[in-house]
């Protein structure tokens, strides 16, 4: 048996064909690889995060229902545990803390959470990375969340000092831990996590009760419920139990900060797995169709011969299908490799924002099979028409060369055409209109890369805009100070007296439940002086509004979810101060991109609550040369329970988002370049193949290489140019979908696309298209006139 007979003759033809069109096949394989890779990256990361989260939640008994309360007696435990469906109860003390960290001028903040003196918590258990849990009999021991510990290079044995409820404590780290409750830990007032400036601390109940004067009391509840339980009923019952003690309304996981952020991320990952890969599948199916049709047109006579020789239809169809499958295999392999590699990158990126004790990478064999399967299926779908043409071709017809392609006159009469264009341009135009479907699909394919870029780049514009409005037009303060408890307005004077403070404005905040018919949301109402300047409220046209003496201002998101219009009366349920309900008219709808916002005049809020004039904190403008002394003073001031450093969170936000965007940008520019190259290069090659003879004839007639290339370039240029407006339009649509899809109670992305974004997207695509054409233009230059003219096509 000769080595050759291992591969049939047809298979050898197949391999030679593949070798001949390797560059076109590679261009298509790359497009396929992008589809496979994006699917693996998005779904792989989705599954890894999802599995990791649910394993962490299950093993460490993450709570289902949460509530906070001003101060409730521990003897409520039996009543709470007795609620129908509750399987685990943890009654805790949670207090804010201001921290003095070594090597850090600005104060860090955190929360201190109580854990049982002995044994593990029934709910929200801790994963101990190193060391041990603090002891109840030794004072000043604490377990620290891993991200904060890492940022400060803490180890068991390290010490630091903290201000908890006005008391300065020197704390010793006994262990580094992770909690399912704080996978995503965000300091109040921050927009992205800052591991250095926000920590979570765990102390034995007795110790923390001593510091916070909460003996026999708790201010926070975490419940686990049974699988068959009805959380809504539990929440109502719990609210009833806690109301007398200043309950602020129980809520489910969906409203728990860490969980909600993680969920939001998962939703986006799944969305990108649904949206992006199909673009690549569509483009690769189209490209397969294009090159296969051309190949079969060129091989009509060979196909006729094969049929005459007695090869069956199935054998011939299978021959071409095999070629497609081989190209797919290259694409799928490349996709697997890239997907794996980039998948790690994405997971690393997530690990920076989410604190997991471990990462679970589920077996993704099915994912690989599925992505390979749909890639092959899409490609074969693209190939069907071309292959069907082969099967249907009678042997005799196949042996005859096709008649010259029929062209039509474009632009009535053709006279006008000649007045306007040279013969070379007319040639290009006629070719373009000869295959309208193909030209249209090529245009669509190219426009998809423009659209992909617009969709990726516009987030720059939105974030810029958001930073501009949020940071420089609304939150103009250097820092926000919050008190442990509401205080008399006189406290403002003490704030003004802090070193370096140039100006201070008071605010009051209270937890409420806003209700309109059957729509309700928990949030806080912010009370501000009518003449606010540091913390400004902007209307929908982004103009500062003066707070009216009466009525409530709500953000667009709040108006949307509660179905509120101007003048509607919304029911305000006070959660903290006795739980009264009052109807308040909505006097204005305002702009806000972060969280749920409801604002009213501080005097009106005082009247609503009815306990006289109180303030919860102050916004300050500081002399930046005296920041260090200010920070030092804040760390020593017992009344201050928290400080949000706007300046720092601003730059931190810019930094983080900037990094993310530049990673995302390079990925998307790469993806768009691959689509553009795949589409333009293949069209150019096919055009060249169809017209090599014409081009050679033109060269024989004395046209220069440049003139002949122009025919090729004009047609592609028209296609690529037509793709731009279409791409802008599609990109605008995709971006709109992204904005709509990412609206949540946590944040809202403004829908802003700058003209420059369209321009950059087009420049990238035009650049790549030009390079692709340049490759093919090389072939015009190398055209062998004699050989082309000798053979009949």
């Amino acid at each position: 048996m000769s080595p050759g007979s291992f591969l049939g003759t047809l298979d050898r033809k197949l391999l030679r064909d593949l070798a001949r069109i390797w560059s076109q096949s590679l261009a298509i394989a790359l497009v396929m690889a992008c589809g496979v890779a994006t699917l693996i990256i998005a779904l792989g990361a989705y599954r890894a995060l999802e599995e990791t989260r649910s394993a962490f939640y299950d093993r460490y008994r993450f709570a289902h229902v949460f509530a906070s309360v001003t101060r409730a007696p521990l003897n409520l435990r039996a009543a709470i545990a007795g609620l129908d469906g509750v399987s685990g109860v943890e009654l805790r003390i949670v207090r804010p803390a201001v921290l003095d960290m070594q090597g850090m001028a600005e104060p860090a903040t955190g929360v201190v959470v109580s854990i049982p003196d002995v044994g593990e918590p029934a709910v929200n258990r801790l994963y101990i990375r190193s060391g041990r849990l603090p002891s109840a009999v030794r004072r000043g021991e604490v377990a620290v969340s891993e991200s904060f510990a890492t940022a400060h290079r803490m180890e068991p044995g390290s010490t630091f000092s903290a201000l908890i409820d006005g008391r300065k404590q020197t704390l010793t780290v006994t262990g580094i831990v992770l909690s399912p409750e704080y996978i995503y830990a965000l300091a109040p007032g921050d927009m992205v996590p800052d591991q250095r400036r926000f920590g979570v601390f765990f102390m034995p109940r007795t110790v923390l009760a001593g510091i916070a004067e909460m003996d026999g009391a708790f201010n926070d509840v975490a419940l686990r419920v049974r699988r068959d339980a009805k959380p809504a009923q539990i929440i109502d019952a719990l609210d009833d139990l806690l109301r007398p003690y200043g309950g602020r309304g129980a809520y489910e996981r969906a409203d728990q900060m860490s969980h909600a952020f993680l969920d939001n991320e998962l939703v986006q990952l799944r969305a990108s797995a649904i949206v992006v890969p199909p673009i690549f599948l569509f483009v690769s199916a189209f490209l397969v169709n294009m090159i296969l049709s051309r190949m079969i047109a060129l091989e009509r006579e060979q196909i006729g011969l094969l049929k005459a020789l007695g090869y069956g239809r199935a054998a011939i169809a299978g021959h071409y299908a095999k070629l497609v499958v081989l190209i797919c295999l290259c694409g799928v392999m490349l996709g697997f490799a890239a997907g794996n590699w980039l998948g790690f990158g994405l997971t690393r990126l997530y690990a920076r924002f989410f604190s997991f004790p471990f990462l679970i990478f589920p077996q993704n064999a099915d994912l690989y099979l599925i992505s390979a399967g749909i890639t092959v299926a899409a490609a074969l779908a693209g190939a069907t028409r071309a292959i069907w043409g082969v099967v249907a071709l009678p042997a005799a017809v196949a042996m005859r060369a096709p008649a010259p392609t029929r062209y039509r006159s474009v632009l009535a009469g053709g006279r006008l055409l000649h007045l306007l264009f040279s013969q070379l341009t007319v040639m290009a135009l006629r070719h373009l209109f000869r295959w309208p479907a193909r030209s249209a699909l090529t245009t669509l394919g190219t426009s998809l890369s423009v659209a992909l870029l617009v969709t990726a780049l516009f987030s720059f514009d939105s974030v810029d805009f958001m930073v501009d409005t949020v940071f420089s037009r609304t939150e103009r303060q250097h820092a926000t100070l919050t008190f442990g408890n509401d205080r008399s307005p006189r406290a403002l004077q003490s704030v003004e007296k802090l070193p370096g403070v140039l100006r201070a404005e008071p605010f009051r905040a209270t937890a409420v439940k806003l209700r309109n018919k059957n729509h309700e949301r928990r949030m806080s109402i912010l009370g501000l002086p009518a003449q606010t300047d540091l913390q400004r409220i902007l209307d929908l046209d982004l103009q500062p509004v003066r707070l009216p003496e009466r009525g409530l201002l709500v953000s667009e998101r709040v108006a949307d979810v509660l179905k509120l219009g101007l003048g509607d009366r919304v029911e305000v349920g006070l959660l903290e101060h006795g739980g009264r309900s009052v109807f308040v008219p909505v006097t204005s709808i305002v702009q806000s991109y972060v969280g749920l916002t409801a604002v009213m005049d501080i005097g009106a809020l005082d009247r609503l609550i009815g306990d006289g004039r109180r303030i919860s904190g102050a916004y300050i403008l500081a002399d930046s040369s005296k920041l260090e002394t200010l920070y030092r003073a804040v760390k020593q001031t017992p009344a201050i329970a928290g400080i949000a450093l706007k300046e720092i969170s601003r730059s931190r936000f810019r930094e983080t988002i900037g990094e993310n965007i530049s990673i995302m940008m390079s990925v998307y520019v790469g993806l768009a370049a691959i689509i553009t190259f795949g589409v333009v290069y293949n069209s150019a090659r096919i055009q060249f193949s169809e017209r090599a003879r014409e081009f050679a004839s033109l060269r024989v007639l004395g046209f220069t290489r440049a003139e002949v290339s122009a025919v090729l370039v004009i047609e592609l240029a028209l296609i690529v140019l037509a793709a731009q407006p279409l791409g802008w339009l599609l990109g605008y649509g995709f971006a709109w979908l992204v904005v709509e899809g990412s609206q949540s109670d946590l944040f809202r992305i403004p829908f802003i696309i700058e003209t420059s974004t369209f321009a950059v997207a087009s420049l990238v695509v035009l650049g790549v298209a030009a390079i692709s054409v340049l490759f093919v233009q090389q072939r015009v230059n190398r055209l062998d006139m004699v050989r082309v003219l000798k053979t009949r096509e």
Partner: protein
Amino acid sequence: MNKQDMTKPVFSAQDVTKVYRSGDVEVHALRGVSLELFEGEMAVLLGPSGSGKSTFLNIMGGLDQATRGTVRFRDLELTACSESQLTRYRRNHVGFVFQFYNLIPSLTAWENVSLVTEIARDPMDPGEALELVGLKERMQHFPAQLSGGEQQRVAIARAIAKKPEVLLCDEPTGALDSKTGIFVLEALSRINRELGTTTALITHNAGIQRIAHRVFSFLDGRIAETRVNETRIEPADVTW
């Protein structure tokens, strides 16, 4: 044609050889061809398949380069020309007619001709050229709407429209039946006569040789015989 013109060669080829190399196989397509063509002359190149006729014609037309030897067109040494000089030479001086017409399918007959007139120095009107080959009525037709002979006549119109000094035809009647073949030959000889275009014509049809002034017989890469026709016949009298 008068005697003075015959003394001044338009083309002169000296000992032209052409070797094709593909891998380690060498094919000697031309093994030392020398000839001269004169102003207004009609020459026919005959010879068995593979004897080197097309190769030689292509070198004369500036489509291909000789391996050794020199080819001159008047004062221009083609064998020393750069690619862009050859392009200019083809554009300004040469008309080609091929066996397979090589029309541009996306252009009408008229447009195929004006393709050339647009870039030529002193062209005739495309309509006039088409009239010369008897196709004025079919100007607006695309190649797909024309018969083989009509397509070939469009190709001739395209070749002559720039009023070339030389017309090089490689088996222009090869794909045609006798009646359309005669049409095409009539068009060629009319142009040769009326415009004084030096014409070289390759054919396998021995009958056609009698319309030429001179006949060159190729054999195995060489000119085996050169013959002068004392009496020429009209294309219409060619026996196919």
